[in-house]
């Protein structure tokens, strides 16, 4: 089931899933642009994929395991230097009110 014509509701829904807050004009612009791309990619349907397995990576590879060795961690300073806000050794985030049920 594919819908090559994209509704504004779908675009809003996808924006929510993608954690992007978009004003209405953006939703309208993206709707037209994305509809164009999605229309183009329907040509994938014309390819016969009967009996063909999906390929996520170009090569078959097996997991490589590291030795279970303790190594020095990255320093806290280096990890916190890009934090938008800190309190002492902690990353500071705005207080978020959870809904009490």
């Amino acid at each position, binding site marked *: *089931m594919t819908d090559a014509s994209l509704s504004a509701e779908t675009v809003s829904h996808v924006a929510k899933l*993608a*954690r992007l807050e978009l004003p209405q004009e953006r939703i309208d612009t993206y709707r037209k642009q*994305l509809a164009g791309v999605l229309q183009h990619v329907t040509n*994938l349907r014309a390819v016969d994929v009967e009996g063909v*397995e*999906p390929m996520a990576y170009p090569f078959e590879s097996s997991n490589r395991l590291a030795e279970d060795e303790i190594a020095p961690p990255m320093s806290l300073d280096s990890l916190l230097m890009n934090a*938008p806000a800190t309190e002492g050794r902690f990353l500071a985030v705005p207080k978020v009110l959870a809904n009490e049920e």
Partner: protein
Amino acid sequence: MHSPDATSIRDAVRNRSASAETVVAAHLRRIDCLNPRLNAFHEVFREQALDRARSIDAAVERGADPGPLAGVPIAIKDNIATTLGHTTCSSRMLEHYRSPFDATVVERLVAAGAVILGKTNLDEFAMGSSTEHCAWGPVRNPWDPSRVPGGSSGGSAAAVASDLCAVALGSDTGGSIRQPASLCGCVGLKPTYGRVSRYGLVAFGSSLDQIGPFARSVRDAALVLDAIAGLDPRDSTSADRLRESFERGLDEAPAPLRIGVPREYLSDANDPEVNRVIEEALDVYREAGATIVSVDLPLTDVGISTYYVIAPAEASSNLARFDGIRYGHRAAPKAGDELVDLYARSRAEGFGPEVQRRIMLGTYVLSSGYYDAYYDRALRVRRLIKQEFDRAFERCDAILGPTSPVPAFRAGEHSDPLSMYLCDVYTVNTNIAGICGISLPGGFTQRDGRDLPIGIQLQAPAFAEHVLLRIARVFERVRADHFRVAPVGAA
């Protein structure tokens, strides 16, 4: 030294006929002069580069081995992590981000004696084919500043093409090294997937991304590949291959040599000058004794659809980490915010429109109800594309064709995203299949009284870079005059 390439610089520094400090200082002066016009560099590490150059000279002075890239000035695309300066991915999301670690490729280049001059501009998060989607302003093509350098590694391509540095690193997910190399008239190599470590490359499409060199000669590209390639325990997708030198034996052309040409590549939709340059390149190979073989790649066109489903899907996952919490842009909190509102505003403010479009596209094709029709199907077509190349390579040693269907276009010409995506038709399948490809300055056309470069692309089987580079060298020996610096600033 007039426009020396990396090989001559390292030879001169190693045998003390030039000092690394002089070479680096000369390139820094060129950057001061030309970068305001080209906007290739976002950051220049003037003092650190001169210090590094001085320590290379000191090493040579006391008889220590300064490394195979001693004194070579190199630029690094700004989506590759450096502890020097910032790593912004040309995005407001990472405007102030300083990496706590160096990418593996950066560590290896420094160990080899190269001198990092700075970070170059790109299409934001490597998403684009023109470097117009750069938060720090567009990059200009050195051959004609009203035109684009290509993308996403436009800054690195423009820097090498105008000799702001001898070589540069870029990244290629669907053509982002090869296409700007074609539009800027230099050499651009995308190694086989897994040949070069991705540790420290900000991920866009994890099954597609590779780091590779820009250079003005095939030997320089081989030199850089020698320095950066190889297994890295910190990148579990890097391949465990025997160390082989790509520079050694570069002048030994494979014999017999079979060059494959897909009829799908000489399309009427190409600019006619592109087709002319391809025909002339085929003549060069014929005269060099190669057999030209017709091969079939019927899935060429559908590669765009395959790529623009898979790459955005992977991007939507990879860019989920940018949420304003641990690093990157955080929106100012508003009363009544839920946590998800903080994420959504931080991301809407931090990401430019092209990045937002691709995240949305990727989220859509992975979402329930659409996953099978788009993403799962694209992965099956991916396997067919790989098999198509495997069959073609049974009959030839390398495939020749255009890198881009057009020479450098004007800024603003492809404002519709789809029309820009269609320019990637000859490069995306290389990444989809994971094989290696290189763009060379194949020829020139004249537009508005200026020379514009047109690239030719060679593609070879996975892990066949040594063959690819030798076949490239055959062309370079005959057409050495094409491998030249852009006349920036000439009237």
